């Protein structure tokens, strides 16, 4: 082995250690940022090590790629708004997976003939996962950005069609592993995987995106890990596996938060079977005036804000923080209750509120805040619906039965900020809105909140 190769391997080892340390520092918001510097240093070391340790013959493509990539990446890093974080992340899953797939294709073109069965199966795995994650993530990004409709796209016999596609993809993979002389099998696997990625994501609605995002994250990571197997490169295996497992853990958490299995999210077609779902809760929704709502808030001891995705679409994060600060100045204790699936990706709502300068010490997870609702004077629900639907707890026939909810109905009074009287995202009726302790404040969340803030000042 040449001296430079030892140097390269050493940088890879350093990079692996730094990556793990950086994720360890992610366990607390105070240390997380320093942790990321470690990961960046590790990445830099690995890149330098590779350029020194491999015999590079042409620099043109390398420099061009690094330059173009840095410009696009840098532009993304400074310009993407926090509300668009899910799309950005989906897009980067697509990019990461595409890079893995392309490396696989390149390796196949150059060394395909001399590969053993094990390397070929790792390669097949890499290319297959890479390709389906690329198109799947692009569709997810399109849905999140609103380029493609957020409603599930479904047709009769969809599951059968998907099954046929999946089976033909896997059989191409197997043929490729067993019979290296059939080059066509490799390319048909690649093509079918691209199609399969699209088919996998189009039937899934926007509300289920947190799960899909996490799954695609996991796939992208595993594709990178498979690349490591193909190239016998340990740092690729380690980094890819960390990414794959983090995505997997997040998918499990998101599924738990919706009380659904992964298969149900992928093949269930939520929202298609609404017909007999809702328990026909009668009664009237009680409307409340701005002044009365402001009065209630101003004279409360404990207020909990429950933000949902509606808060983000109304761009009302700053408005809610201003209202909260006014209340705190009056001596009211204010907390925020964050449901795990509030937002379009895991943890999204926390980031949106952090951007609006809400201290993270005021953000409470579901398990922490639920016991406190009974001693809460006013719970303010802003643009959230299913995550506060008591049917999930009380009505075993409900579509969302068993989904853990924020138990706002235990609070002494509830004010719901809502655009209009319509049903929410999932189309389910929400009995919370008809309870005697609940009052509705209709209108755009942002203007309602800033009017509330004005009214509180005049109380």
């Amino acid at each position, binding site marked *: 082995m040449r001296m430079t190769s030892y140097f390269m391997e050493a940088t890879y080892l350093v990079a692996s250690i730094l990556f793990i340390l*950086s*994720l*360890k520092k*992610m*366990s607390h*918001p105070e240390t997380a*940022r320093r942790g*990321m510097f470690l*990961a960046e240093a590790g*990445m830099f070391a690995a*890149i330098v090590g*590779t350029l020194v340790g*491999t*015999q*590079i013959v042409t620099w*043109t*493509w*390398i420099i061009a*790629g690094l330059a173009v*990539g*840095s410009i696009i*990446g840098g532009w*993304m*890093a*400074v310009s993407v708004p*926090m509300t668009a974080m899910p799309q*950005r*992340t989906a897009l*980067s*899953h697509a*990019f*990461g997976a*595409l890079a*893995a797939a*392309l490396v696989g294709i*390149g390796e196949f*073109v*150059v060394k395909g003939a001399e590969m053993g069965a094990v*390397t070929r199966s790792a390669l097949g795995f890499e290319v297959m996962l890479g390709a389906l994650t690329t198109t799947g993530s692009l569709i997810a990004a399109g849905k999140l950005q609103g380029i493609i409709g957020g409603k599930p796209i479904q047709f009769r016999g969809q599951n059968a069609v998907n099954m046929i596609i999946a089976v033909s993809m896997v059989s191409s993979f197997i043929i490729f592993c067993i019979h290296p002389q059939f080059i066509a099998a490799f390319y048909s696997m690649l093509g079918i995987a691209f199609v399969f990625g699209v088919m996998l994501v189009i039937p899934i609605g926007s509300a289920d995106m947190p799960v899909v995002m996490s799954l695609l994250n996991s796939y992208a*990571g595993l594709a990178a890990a498979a690349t490591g197997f193909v*190239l016998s490169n340990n740092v690729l*295996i*380690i980094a*890819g*596996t*960390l990414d*794959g*497992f*983090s*995505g997997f853990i*997040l998918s499990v*958490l998101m599924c738990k938060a919706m009380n659904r299995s992964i298969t149900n999210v992928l093949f269930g077609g939520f929202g298609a079977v609404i017909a007999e779902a809702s328990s026909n809760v009668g009664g009237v929704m009680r409307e409340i005036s701005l002044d009365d709502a402001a009065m209630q808030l101003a004279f409360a001891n404990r207020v909990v804000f429950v933000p949902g995705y509606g808060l983000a679409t109304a761009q009302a994060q700053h408005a809610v923080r201003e209202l909260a600060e006014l209340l705190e100045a009056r001596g009211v204790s204010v907390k925020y209750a964050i449901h795990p699936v509030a937002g379009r*990706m*895991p*943890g999204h709502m*926390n980031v949106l509120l*952090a*951007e609006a300068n809400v201290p*993270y010490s005021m953000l409470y*997870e579901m398990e922490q805040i639920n016991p406190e609702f009974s001693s809460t004077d006013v719970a303010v629900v802003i643009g959230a619906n299913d995550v506060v639907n008591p049917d999930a707890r009380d009505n075993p026939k409900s579509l969302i039965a068993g989904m853990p909810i924020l138990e706002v109905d235990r609070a002494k009074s509830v004010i719901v900020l809502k655009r209009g009287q319509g049903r929410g995202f999932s189309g389910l009726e929400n009995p919370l809105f008809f309870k005697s302790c609940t009052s509705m404040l209709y209108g755009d969340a942002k203007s309602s909140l800033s009017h509330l803030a004005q009214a509180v000042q005049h109380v």
Partner: protein
Amino acid sequence: MNPAVLIASVYVFALAAFLGYQVISRVPPLLHTPLMSATNAISGISLIGSLVLAGAKGYPQSAHILGFIAVTTATVNVVGGFGITDRMLKMFGKRKTESKEAAK
């Protein structure tokens, strides 16, 4: 693939999976979005495979071009991913001082 290398790789994979599970399950839900974007940036390490494809000895021109695209997309992930993660974590970090100022 040499069986010894394969076995070593499987060991690395299994240990990384175990370690990843231990480390990542300690990350609070508060930081799940930055976590996803950070692991994403880290898995941009496939950049090193792309670099080899784009310029190393023994690869034809067609591989160099595939490599160029791969280097570009992987770099977007690394630079964009770390950049955005840092932007988010900065928002979570700055608060202590600011809320103290507000308290005054």
